[in-house]
């Protein structure tokens, strides 16, 4: 058979279309039988000849087939690379498209730089209907084959300047991810972006990336930090940075997302460059009445922060933690099920920057998802692995913050009042003033609530919550004040609260106790020994049957005072447990006083298995350690 094919291929004259058709069929056959060696070389040579033919049809056919060949034998096709790149600039759009696909298939690390340069050159002159495809392909190439980060950033900036409108959101997010991971390039990046921005012409992605970088790395721009060699120095004053942000805000071409980015960046800049605060305040205030809910909300919140809460501003807009690339990629794959995992470090800095749009009407779905991903990124840290237990871990973190308890389903849980586990020292100090129990539902971030599965953690990170405490001078009181954010019903009472709290509405401070709208269960004596009685009272919300709130009361029935009372609990795997800080750790003798504690339990097998818990209490009598433990089996059924 190979003989026949070879014979036909060599003897057919190709000046007529019929001849070409026969040759083409030969090539197809040779590829189909997966010949190796001489025959395949023959086929590829024929295709090469076709590529040089003047006739559009023939070239089209050749490009088409070469795409299939590349999969099999890249080397042979590389020889024709220049011709193919020429075809990318052909006048026929079908040929252009095919050639572009082929070029992408041909790229490898060695030729990516030259190819990208050519493609970028072409991007400038290509016609509008072809630009989106071309842009996407260039971005894809750059992303896949970049030899070093600096080159990547350069190319992306060039692409965004040329065709910013067509750069998709997830590409710009990936770029931001890379920038935040490349600490040494951040100064260079922000300066290049600033320079590129001088030629800004309404490109969406360029605006977003520039604005974000200025917000994060503004001081590098002004103070010439981290200059790489070969960089031309550019003097930028603080006012200039604000100018850029103002330009983006005011431009009619900027979308709401971009404006939201700009507002957040303004807040960050005001904390980095205090001299511009007045001007920034005026700028932000202009959006107080914006018809876009997202902008209005941000404007009001930021105005409050700028005017009244200078002291926490710095900690609120700390630099973002480095976004973890691996988890980002995994999350992109798993976008639907992604949930936050929080780290106490990231809590103060990251909640504000990219609040997902619950209500922004102009936001497209993909934009929302992209932002949500960004928020996930912001909040995500490799150190706190997330997966399904995010709700809990967020609870953990918050509890850590508040000096509370973190709970795990593995054996024992310690509930001493723990020290802060992260860097949010400023916040913790604030929080420890009020012994931070008064969490309220109506935080300014309550707009996060409409995304129930993603936002419990976000809703629970309310860095501004200590503020009402401060303002309302709450004392160490009612443990019963709920971490109502932890209840599953996140949609409740989104009090038109943008800024409501920050306005120091005192009434909210002592707020929402647990609503006992659910079925009522009789209290039980969980544990009783010669010196200690532990009793549980239950409350449950009818809207969330698997979750139960237990009010534990410890009484000292002996004649000795107990000090350093520590209560620990363990639950089986199907339950989740959260311990809140105890009201104290001293039990006076003879039942003259009690210590109370709120325990939250979630029974994932509600209705099938009833609750069971093992408890351990340790305390000191005159310096002697005593340990008591037991199992609580007498929970009322149906919990």
């Amino acid at each position: 058979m190979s003989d026949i094919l070879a014979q036909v291929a060599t003897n057919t004259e190709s000046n007529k279309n019929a001849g070409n058709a026969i040759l083409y069929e030969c090539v197809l056959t040779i590829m189909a039988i997966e010949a190796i060696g001489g025959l395949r070389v023959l086929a590829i040579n024929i295709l090469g000849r076709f590529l040089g033919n003047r006739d559009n049809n023939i070239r089209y056919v050749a490009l088409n087939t070469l795409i299939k060949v590349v999969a099999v034998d890249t080397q042979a096709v590389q020889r024709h690379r220049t011709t193919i790149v020429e075809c990318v600039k052909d006048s026929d759009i079908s040929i252009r498209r095919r050639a572009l696909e082929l070029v992408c298939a041909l790229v490898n690390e060695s030729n990516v730089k030259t190819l990208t340069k050519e493609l970028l050159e072409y991007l400038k002159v290509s016609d509008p209907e072809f630009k989106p495809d071309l842009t996407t392909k260039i971005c894809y190439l750059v992303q896949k084959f970049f030899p070093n980060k600096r080159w990547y950033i350069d190319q992306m900036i060039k692409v965004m300047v040329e065709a910013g409108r067509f750069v998709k959101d997830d590409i710009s997010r990936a770029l931001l991810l890379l920038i935040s991971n490349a600490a040494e390039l951040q100064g260079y990046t922000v300066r290049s972006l600033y320079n590129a921005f001088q030629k800004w012409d309404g490109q969406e992605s360029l605006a977003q990336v520039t604005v974000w970088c200025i917000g994060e790395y503004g001081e590098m721009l002004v103070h010439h930090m981290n200059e790489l060699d070969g960089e031309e120095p550019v003097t930028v004053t603080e006012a200039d940075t604000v100018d850029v942000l103002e330009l983006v805000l005011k431009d009619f071409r900027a979308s709401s997302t971009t404006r939201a980015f700009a507002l957040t960046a303004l807040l960050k800049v005001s904390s980095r460059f205090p001299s511009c605060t007045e001007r920034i305040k005026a700028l932000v205030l202009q959006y107080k009445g914006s018809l876009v809910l997202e902008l209005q909300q941000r404007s009001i919140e930021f105005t409050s922060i700028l005017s009244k809460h200078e002291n926490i501003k710095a900690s609120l807009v700390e630099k973002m933690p480095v976004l973890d690339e691996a988890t980002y990629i995994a999350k992109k794959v798993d976008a639907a099920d992604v949930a936050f995992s929080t780290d106490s470090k990231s809590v103060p800095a990251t909640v504000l920057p990219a609040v997902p749009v619950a209500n922004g009407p102009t936001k497209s779905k993909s934009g929302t998802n992209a932002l949500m991903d960004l928020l996930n990124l912001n909040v995500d840290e490799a150190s706190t692995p997330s997966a399904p237990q995010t709700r809990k871990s967020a609870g953990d973190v918050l509890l850590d913050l508040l000096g509370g308890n973190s709970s795990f389903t593995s054996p024992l849980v310690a509930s001493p009042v723990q020290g802060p586990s992260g860097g949010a020292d400023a916040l913790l100090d604030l929080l420890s003033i009020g012994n931070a129990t008064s969490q309220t539902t109506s935080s300014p971030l309550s707009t996060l609530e409409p995304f129930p599965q993603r936002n419990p953690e976000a809703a629970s990170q309310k860095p501004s919550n200590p503020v009402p405490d401060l303002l309302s001078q709450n004392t160490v009181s009612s443990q019963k004040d709920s971490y109502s954010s932890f209840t599953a019903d996140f949609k409740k009472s989104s009090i038109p609260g943008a800024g409501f709290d920050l306005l120091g509405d005192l009434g909210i401070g002592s707020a929402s106790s647990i609503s006992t709208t659910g079925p009522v269960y009789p209290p039980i004596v969980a544990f009783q020994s010669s010196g200690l009685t532990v009793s549980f009272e239950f409350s449950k919300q009818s809207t969330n049957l698997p979750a139960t709130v237990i009010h534990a009361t410890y009484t000292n029935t002996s004649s000795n005072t107990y000090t350093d009372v520590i209560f620990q609990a363990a639950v089986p795997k199907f339950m989740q447990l959260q311990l809140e800080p105890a009201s104290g750790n001293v039990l006076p003798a003879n039942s003259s006083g009690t210590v109370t504690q709120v325990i939250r339990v979630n029974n994932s097998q509600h209705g099938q298995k009833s609750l069971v818990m093992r408890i351990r209490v340790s305390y000191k009598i005159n310096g002697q350690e005593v340990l008591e433990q037991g199992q609580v089996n007498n929970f009322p059924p149906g919990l």
Partner: protein
Amino acid sequence: MIHFVLLFSRQGKVRLTKWYSPYSQKERAKVIRELSGVILPRGPKLCNFVEWRGVKVVYKRYASLYFCMCIDSEDNELECLEIIHHYVQILDRYFGNVCELDLIFNFHKAYFILDEVLIAGELQESSKKSVARVIAAQDALVDAAKEQAASLSNIIAQATR
């Protein structure tokens, strides 16, 4: 295989359609509309293959008529171009310098010829001579029948029946 053959003028008027795959009436109308919209605006220098809805459409313009054939993605487009040319050559030989008017007034003959050349979406007769011979024989039959119907004896027989 060829899914359908479509002939339309530069103004978009359909001169001939032949379907070798099941398309409902509505689909047919839709296909015709869309394809005309895709092919008519294409410039002269562009290549003759269009990817459309997962299938390839090969078209060639002869004077004011566009000949379109829709083929599978795996098929050889150059070959399809040859088939189109083959068909046009047969038409030309039969009508003698065929023009669009010939096809408008003798569309039934165009269909006969097409049926000789293509069957079930595949090329059946690659010899122009055979096709010409067969169509000529058919024409002769038609003429004979006409003559017989018009002959005097027949008229008398009809009248007295």
